[in-house]
């Protein structure tokens, strides 16, 4: 964001002052000097007036032994957005929602030329925060700042529970403020309202790994838990684009289907009718057709069997045989059609027509070897066999359509799940949870 700021590798030493706590006598280091309003004694937990040469005690608070130390120790220096900063303050704050307390940590960063900025951390989610330079305009459930609209996320009473280091304001433990968050991921606009003032700040979601890298911290940052209010969705930018791409592909698929249907030959190369005499010994029923030509490039062959089966079946063992090469395609097809009426009403099963598509058949002279079988109790069954060359297989287009649709649905579902997880923690949850009357 900013360049040209002198690095803090050789900080202006004269600005650091060592003092002693008037309460316990422990050494106190003031890192930001004139910028600090209050400083906290880390030994006796007294909040001292940093503007007072005698460090007047403003407040003293108790610290639980379970208090978690800052993840970034005070005095740590790092480069954030091209500017060197030093961690000078730390506070733990909390809100209570429906009886559940949520704690987060805030770090005060200082640069003698740039002033202060802040880092917040909640369950592994970090935000880089600066104070707004202009006053945002607030509307119904939204706020606008620098031309960007932010949706209202949550309003809660924030309490300060623990402080450490220096602060450029009059910090107090158990100080309350009404905190309101508006989000436009990855940014977040927050206001803090006390009896005396309203402070607006702008936060940008920052990954823990970037913080660790910036401050050269040992180990790894804590893993983020859940979805944070301004956490950028991994798929949000893609959903509309993917559906636009899907529609484009679907249109191309439709064009391709029409083109293949129009350009495929679909010519009938053989058509003949037969009668199957039931009761003939099996094996002797087999016969071969006349030879027919399959011309052109390698293409599929559709063999359609139509039989006048009436509550009956006929099964045909087919072999499409190349007269010249001896190559054969062997398959069996059943044509059966049953119907009737029972307590559920009329019913029917099967069809009097069946088609099969033999794949990638080269040009040549072919014949069919047919071996029909049927129920010997039924009268003779008439059937016809039609052979077509080069038919479009619409099933491929259906599969392609689904193959294109499924990823688009999955990505959309991921997007919706992410946004639901985000807003479920807000004042505007997507669904009511439990028996709340809110």
């Amino acid at each position: 964001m900013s360049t040209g700021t002198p690095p803090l590798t050789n900080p202006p030493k004269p600005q650091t002052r060592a003092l002693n706590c008037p309460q316990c006598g422990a050494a106190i280091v003031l890192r930001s000097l004139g910028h600090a309003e209050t400083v906290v004694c880390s030994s006796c937990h007294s909040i001292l007036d940093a503007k007072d040469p005698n460090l007047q005690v403003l407040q003293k608070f108790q610290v639980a032994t379970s208090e978690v130390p800052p993840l970034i120790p005070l005095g740590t220096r790092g480069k954030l957005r091209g500017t060197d900063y030093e961690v000078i303050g730390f506070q733990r704050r909390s809100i209570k929602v429906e009886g559940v307390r949520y704690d987060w940590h805030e770090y005060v960063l200082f640069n003698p030329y740039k002033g202060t900025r802040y880092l917040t951390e909640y369950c592994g989610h970090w935000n880089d925060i600066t104070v707004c330079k202009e006053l945002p305009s607030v509307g119904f459930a939204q706020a606008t700042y620098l031309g960007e609209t932010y949706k209202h996320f949550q309003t809660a009473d924030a309490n300060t529970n623990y402080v450490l280091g220096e602060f450029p304001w009059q910090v107090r433990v158990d100080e309350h403020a009404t905190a309101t968050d508006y989000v436009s991921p990855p940014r977040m606009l927050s206001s803090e309202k006390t009896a005396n003032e309203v402070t607006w700040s702008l936060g940008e979601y920052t990954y823990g790994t970037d913080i660790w890298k910036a401050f050269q911290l040992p180990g790894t940052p804590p893993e983020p838990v859940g979805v944070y209010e301004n956490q950028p969705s991994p798929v949000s930018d893609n959903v509309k684009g993917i559906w636009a791409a899907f529609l484009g592909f679907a249109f191309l698929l439709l064009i391709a289907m029409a083109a293949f249907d129009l350009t495929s030959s679909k010519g009938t190369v053989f058509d003949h009718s037969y009668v199957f005499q039931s009761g003939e010994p099996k094996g002797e029923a087999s016969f071969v057709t006349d030879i027919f030509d399959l011309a052109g490039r390698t293409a599929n062959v559709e063999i359609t069997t139509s039989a006048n089966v009436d509550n009956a079946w006929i099964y045909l063992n087919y072999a499409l045989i190349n007269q010249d090469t001896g190559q054969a395609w062997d398959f069996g097809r059943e044509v059966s059609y049953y119907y009737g009426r029972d307590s559920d009403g009329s019913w029917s099963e099967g069809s009097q027509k069946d088609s099969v598509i033999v794949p990638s058949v080269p040009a040549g002279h072919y014949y069919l070897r047919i071996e029909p079988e049927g129920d010997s109790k039924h009268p003779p069954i008439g059937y016809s066999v039609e052979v077509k060359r080069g038919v479009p297989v619409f099933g491929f287009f259906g599969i392609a359509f689904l193959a294109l649709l499924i990823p688009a649905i999955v990505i959309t579902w991921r997007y919706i799940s992410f946004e639901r997880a985000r807003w479920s923690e807000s004042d505007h949850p997507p669904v009511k949870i439990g028996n709340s009357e809110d």
Partner: protein
Amino acid sequence: MFKKLYLAYGVLVLGGTGVAQYNGWSLDRVNQLKNVPKSVRDNPGSYRSVYGFYHHYTGGK
């Protein structure tokens, strides 16, 4: 990134469909054999279909 991946995937799907269609592939199950003797034409009964022992569904509710 997702969009670029999807675009590449879509092109592959469309291309695959075109290749399948152009080469005359099929979704049906057909058994392919080689070197069927020419005598089958004179004696069709000598050919043994791999589907010859299929147990037929006789239909009906």
